[in-house]
């Protein structure tokens, strides 16, 4: 099937304004009759729930954490982009649009990215109004920093905790609506199924994570803002509870999963120390503003204390390979470059999987005080984990899975192919193409939540009669029974392996075969191994405890069961995409000096997969991508 993204036509500058006018509205006095379910309370979900509640809709919001304030958006450190052009350095909505399309390696929809760039400025204003304490200069004006993939300073920040401050802003707006009674908040509640009635999303089924009760909720529309899926790699920078479960349950009910092979491996994470490791910690990309990446030129220098490696024996490989962007090369490029150096056996630290990020030059230039002011909390965090002082000794960093550009397919209105099911933020596939630029995730989450969904959901709701399907409908009972059956099955396997042992096994396959560099043979190997691990899981997992109590093993087992199905789709997508683009690097498709080779003639489309069951191949649906405003070009940062 050829998918229609329903993007508006005409000059790109007018698309969003025209579309907003063309869409239907819901009369203010009718809004309260519509019930909207919002799953996930990160930047996208929190902002959406708050904004829809304020508009007068009857909103129920769900999160698996104990408070809406804890979603993993909170961990974003560096900043949020906007085209304000406050520094007068040549930025514009058009340039942000251009950088994002190019940064995404020409695999995103132009109109969606234009809209994102256009509303980026409103986001900053909104957050300031909420009391978000952005960094300011001595005259009291908002300060900016630079980020990878851009040659202008357009990143707004709140020390090294921008995600936290923006999320707390959204959480405060949400709290205000909870108090006002427009939003009913349900914490420690995990969505385990999407209820679809006559092909339309009408509700969800959840497990109360404290009592174990399975409960269904009906809504006239369902919004998923449930984040990304890189915990499929086991070790990633995501929070422990991040999972593909909500999105995957929707996929099993017919929603298409788009571009799952576009995964982002972040270049600046703290290297792994051993097998006990449960997660990897990211160090903000903003560190590359002042830090210089290097490794020893000679293998025999790798064991030396970094200070003992002479200047001429250091290889500042990013500055060498990409002179115009240098240490600010985009994430996919910087990650692959680090991997190349380590594959060449010139890595440093335990297992030789690490490169240096050195601040000596910056400290000499601006002083330790300034560096401390810019990155103090990051240096502190680094020291807590590694026991090393990065003011005195270069940091060691290595790439780690961090973000998923792929996600559920949505049209321009952020609605999936299932009417009534909307998908926001990292959970959808829409704006980052094959690679996301730094400081753009926060921008997308808040754009979707504050400034897109409040308009586009009205266009849908205006076409339905509120409350026609409620949880009285038999589909809800059926959904509850299905969820209960899976829980009972998991608890009754009583095998020998723990959930985390099997998750590690899956992660190893995903990282080695479907990680930073993929080949036909590695992907075929993964496609053979994933079903084997899945079989072992369903025959030999040991889930302790019972269903009607707080049971973290059961929660993890359910999430792993979904990763074990989803991982196969991810590898299938990676195998089918016979090109290298952004975060998807196929070793067969590269230039002589190792740069990605894109194939626009055959692959300039969104690949959206329809799940057909574990024993059947998924069906590929394509949405062709047209580039009418930005000319397709080789993405060069040299």
């Amino acid at each position, binding site marked *: 099937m050829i998918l229609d993204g329903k993007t508006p036509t005409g000059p790109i500058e007018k698309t969003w304004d025209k579309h907003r006018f063309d869409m239907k509205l819901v009369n203010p006095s009718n809004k309260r009759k519509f019930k909207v379910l919002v799953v996930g309370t990160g930047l996208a979900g929190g902002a959406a729930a708050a*904004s829809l509640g304020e508009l007068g809709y009857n909103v129920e919001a769900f999160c698996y954490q104990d408070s809406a304030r804890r979603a993993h958006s909170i961990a974003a450190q560096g900043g949020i982009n906007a085209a304000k052009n406050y520094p007068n350095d040549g930025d514009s909505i058009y340039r942000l649009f251009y950088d994002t399309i190019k940064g995404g390696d020409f695999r995103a929809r132009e109109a969606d990215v234009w809209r994102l760039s256009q509303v980026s400025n409103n986001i900053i204003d909104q957050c300031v109004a909420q009391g978000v304490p952005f960094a300011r200069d001595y005259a009291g004006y908002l300060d900016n920093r630079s980020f990878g993939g851009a040659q202008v300073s357009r990143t707004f920040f709140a020390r090294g905790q921008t995600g936290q401050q923006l999320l707390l802003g959204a959480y405060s707006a949400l709290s205000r609506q909870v108090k006002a009674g427009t939003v009913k908040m349900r*914490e420690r509640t995990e969505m385990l199924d999407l209820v679809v009635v006559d092909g339309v999303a009408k509700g969800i089924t959840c497990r109360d994570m404290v009592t174990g009760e399975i409960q269904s909720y009906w809504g006239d529309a369902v919004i998923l803002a449930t984040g990304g899926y890189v915990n499929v790699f086991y070790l990633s920078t995501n*929070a422990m509870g991040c999972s593909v479960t909500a999105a995957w349950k929707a996929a099993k009910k017919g929603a298409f999963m788009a571009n799952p092979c576009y995964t982002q491996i972040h270049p600046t994470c703290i290297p792994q120390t051993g097998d006990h490791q449960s997660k990897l910690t990211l160090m903000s990309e903003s560190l590359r503003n002042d830090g210089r990446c290097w490794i020893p030129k000679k293998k025999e220098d790798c064991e030396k204390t970094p200070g003992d490696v002479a200047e001429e024996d250091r290889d500042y490989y990013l500055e060498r390979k990409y002179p115009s962007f240098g240490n600010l090369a985009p994430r996919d490029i910087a990650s692959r470059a680090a991997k190349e150096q380590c594959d060449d056996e010139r890595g440093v630290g335990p297992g030789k999987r690490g490169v240096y990020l050195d601040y000596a030059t910056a400290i000499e230039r601006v002083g330790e005080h300034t560096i401390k002011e810019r990155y103090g909390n990051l240096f502190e965090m680094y020291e807590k984990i590694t*026991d090393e002082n990065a003011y005195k000794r270069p940091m060691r960093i290595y790439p780690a899975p961090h973000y998923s550009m792929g996600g559920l397919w949505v049209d321009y209105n952020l609605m999936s192919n299932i009417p009534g099911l909307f998908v926001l933020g990292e959970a959808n596939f829409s704006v980052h193409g094959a690679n996301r630029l730094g400081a753009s995730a926060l921008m997308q989450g808040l754009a979707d939540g504050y400034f897109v969904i409040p308009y586009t959901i009205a266009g849908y709701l205006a076409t339905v009669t509120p409350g026609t399907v409620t949880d009285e409908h038999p589909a809800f009972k059926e959904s509850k029974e299905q969820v209960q059956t899976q829980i009972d099955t998991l608890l009754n396997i009583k095998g020998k392996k723990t959930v985390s042992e099997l998750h590690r096994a899956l992660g190893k396959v995903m990282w080695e075969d479907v990680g930073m560099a993929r080949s036909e043979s590695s992907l075929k190997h993964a496609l053979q191994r994933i079903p084997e691990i899945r079989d072992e899981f369903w025959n030999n997992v040991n889930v302790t405890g019972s269903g009607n109590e707080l049971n973290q093993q059961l929660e993890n087992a359910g999430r792993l069961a979904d990763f074990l199905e989803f991982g196969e789709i991810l590898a299938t997508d990676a195998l089918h995409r016979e090109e290298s683009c952004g975060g998807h690097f196929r070793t067969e498709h590269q230039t002589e000096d190792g740069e990605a080779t894109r194939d626009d003639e055959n692959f300039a489309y969104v690949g959206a997969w329809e799940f057909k069951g574990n024993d059947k191949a998924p069906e590929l649906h394509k949405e062709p991508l047209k580039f009418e405003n930005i000319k397709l070009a080789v993405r060069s940062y040299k």
Partner: protein
Amino acid sequence: MDLTLHVWRQKGPKNNGKLETYPAKGISPDMSFLEMLDEVNEGLIKNGKLPIVFDHDCREGICGMCSQTINGRAHGGQERTTVCQLHMRSFQHGDEIFIEPWRARAFPVVSDLIVDRSSLDTIMQAGGYTSCHTGGVPDGNAHPIGKPVADYAMDAAECIGCGACVAGCPNSSAMLFTSAKVAQLAVQPQGKIEAKARVINMTDALQAEGFGNCTNHLECEASCPKGISIKFIAKLNREYIKTIAG
């Protein structure tokens, strides 16, 4: 290193709890405290026992989900460190470690080391916001805010809402938590407008939720993994007095 753990086990809010003893063997100094507990749990599962349940999520010290009292100190007592960022290199071979949930009336135990902190959300709902609408706000640079004021607001805003201040306080007071939000918003032009109603509503909620009063023990600041200063409590008190004095 080998350690002996004494861990609070409690099936549910209505059950009685008690300390159970478990060995933790072959622990690497590079492990985080939670990874050490993961390892102990793997052992418990293999031996047919129920693993210890505890709240955790980001494991990088920012989400505020992890919440354990270790040897009587919230988050283990290391300066500016959450449990998830506490590493085993700060312990020694042979150590006995006591692990308990947050203890406060306003934080009832849910299970083992997990407590119910929804009372903190209730305080926020009482006024921890500016009542701005989505959209229709002025340009971000319309109201310049001096750098010292912005920095002060940011110092307060760093609170991760973990509740360590309450767990550390002999009165189980949530004054540090509440004051951080009151202060962050009171000093900024966007928050000043509602400052009076906010300080009253939030402190009223704090009392209604069963938290104790502040009697200047300063344990909150010592327990806070983000180093939130008690100067914000002084600020809350000033805001409060200004308000009731007219």
